[in-house]
C-alpha cells in the first residue's frame, strides 16, 4: 500500500468531518482511506496539464432572483423538527461562558 494514513491524519480528518471515531473505527478508517487513495492515485497517470478544472458541465454563474416571499409562515412546522426547543427558539448547549 502506497498511501499510509497516520494516526495524526485520521485525527485531523475527524476534526474536519466533525466525527468522533472509536479506536476500532479509526483503524478501519486508516485502512479504507489508504486503499481508496491508492486507487484514486490512478488519476496521476493522466496528463491534465493545462486542463481547466470543470466543476459544472454547463457554464453556470450566480443566479439571482428578486427576494420575494412566496411561501407562507411555516415556522411551527419547521420548529416541530427541533430536537429541543423553547418557544420559538432552538435550544443548544451553552457556547459562550
Amino acid at each position: 500500500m502506497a498511501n499510509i494514513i497516520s494516526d495524526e491524519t485520521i485525527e485531523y480528518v475527524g476534526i474536519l468531518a466533525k466525527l468522533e471515531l472509536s479506536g476500532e473505527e479509526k483503524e478501519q478508517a486508516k485502512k479504507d482511506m489508504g486503499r481508496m487513495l491508492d486507487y484514486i492515485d490512478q488519476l496521476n497517470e493522466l496528463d491534465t496539464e493545462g486542463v481547466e478544472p470543470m466543476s459544472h458541465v454547463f457554464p453556470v454563474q450566480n443566479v439571482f432572483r428578486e427576494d420575494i416571499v412566496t411561501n407562507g409562515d411555516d415556522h411551527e412546522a419547521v420548529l416541530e423538527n427541533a430536537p429541543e426547543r423553547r418557544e420559538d427558539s432552538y435550544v443548544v448547549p451553552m457556547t459562550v461562558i
Partner: protein
Amino acid sequence: MDILKYTAVELGKKIKAGQVTAMQACQAALDRIEEKESTLNCYITVDKEGALARAASVQEQIEKGALAGPLAGVPVAVKDNMNTKGMRTTCASHILDNFVPAFSAEAVCNLEKAGAVILGKTNMDEFAMGSTTETSYFGATRNPHDPAHVPGGSSGGSAAAVAAEECFFALGSDTGGSIRQPASFCGVVGMKPTYGTVSRYGLIAYGSSLDQIGPLCRDVTDCAAVLSVIASYDNKDATSIKREDYDFMSALTDDVKGMRIGIPKDYFGDGLDPVVKETVLAAVELLREKGALVEEFELSLVEYAIPAYYVIACAEASSNLARFDGVKYGYRAKEYEGLHQMYKRTRSEGFGAEVKRRIMLGSFVLSSGYYDAYYLKALRTKALIKKAFDKAFGAYDVIIGPAAPTTAPKLGESLTDPIQMYLGDIYTVSANLAGLPGITVPCGKDEKGLPIGMQLLGDCFQEKKLLRAAYAYECAAKERRERS
C-alpha cells in the same frame, strides 16, 4: 384484467374512461404492499390513509374534468430522499429518522399537480451512498426476482417496488447510477435525465453537481410520461435548466432508421459477465435490424471515471452533510459536554459506516495540502471525460452498453469490499460526471433468472433520442416474443 398489471399510462386511461377508480387502483397497490413487504422491504413509510384520502379527492377532480393528465389517479412511490410535506423523510438514516418536512420537493409537487397519488417513501442506501440498498438504517430491500439477491442501489426500494407491482411507477435519484443500476437489477426501465432537467429543490443533497431525479417505470412509455410531468424549470434550484420542449411522449415513434449507434469497446472488456455482454449485444442487434447504423468505437478514459467520481462525490457529500449537526432537525445525541461534542456525538451515532467513510474521504481530499492533488485533479479528469463524450456524440446519436458488469449479487456479498462495490458503477458514473441523460431498459435474464439491463446514453438534452431508441427496442423485443 388485474389492475396491478396495467402500466401507469394504461391505468391513467382506464381511470379517465371511468373503468377503474383512483381509489380502486390505490387499494390494489396497498393490498400488494401488504402482501409483499414482509419479504421485500421496499418501503420505509407507507401512508395508507393519506393515499386513500388523496385518491378520493383526485377521483372527484377527474370526474369534474379538473385533472386530465396521463398520471391522474395513478399511485406512485417516492424515494425517501425527496421531501414530502407532512410525510416523514428519512434518507434511510438514523440521523433523520424522525424528520417531517415542512415543504415538498419540486418534483413531488409536479407529481401532485398532475394528480398522482403518493403511496409512501421507498427504501434506499443511507444518503444514497451505496449500490445495493443494504446500507439503509431500515434494513435491506430484496430483489423481487429472487429475494436472496439485492435490488441494486441506491434507489433499490423504488426499483423493487415497481418490479413487485407495489406501485405503478416511482421516483429515484441518480448520482452515480442510482436509478439506472437498480432498474437493471430489477428488470424495470429507469432514466437519469440531463443534469438540471428535474429540479433538485427538496432533494436531500449528496453530490450536488451530479444528483438528478428521474423515473423508474414498467415501460418506456411510462418513463416518457413521467419525465414530461416532473421536468420543469425551477428558480429555487440555481442549476435548473430551461428546456425548450417538455413533451417527451412525442419521441415514442418506433423508428430508428438511420440512427447512429456507437458501441464503446471499452464497455465490453474485462470484468463484464459474458452473459450480460451477449444479452446486451443481442439487444443492439434488434436495433440494427430496424435500420439503426451500429458501429464499435473507443470511448477512452473509462477506468478513470470511478476514481474521479468518488473524489468529487465524497467532497461534495462532506460539505452537504455538514448540516446534520443535531441543532435544527433530526437526531441529537443524548450525552455530551458542550456544543462541539454534541455535534460530534450526534454525527457519529447518527450516520452509518458507509456515510462516515465517504465524509472522511471527502474531508481529506478537500483539506489544505491535498485539494490540488485530489479534488482539482478529479475536476480536470471530469473535463477530459466530458470532452471524450463530446467527441463520441459528434459521431453517434446514442451510445449503448451494459448498465452494470453483472446481474444482482447476493445480499451480504458487496459491503465487505468497498472498492469492489465501487467498481460496479463503471458504466454509470460517467453520465453523471458529464451531465448526460441515460436510460436502462430490461433486455433479458441470466441463467439464474435475474434481469439484465441495456443502458443507452445520449448527449446533453437528447432525451428524445434515447426514448426513441429505447422504445424501438421495446417494440422489437415484444414483436420477437410474439413471434416465438
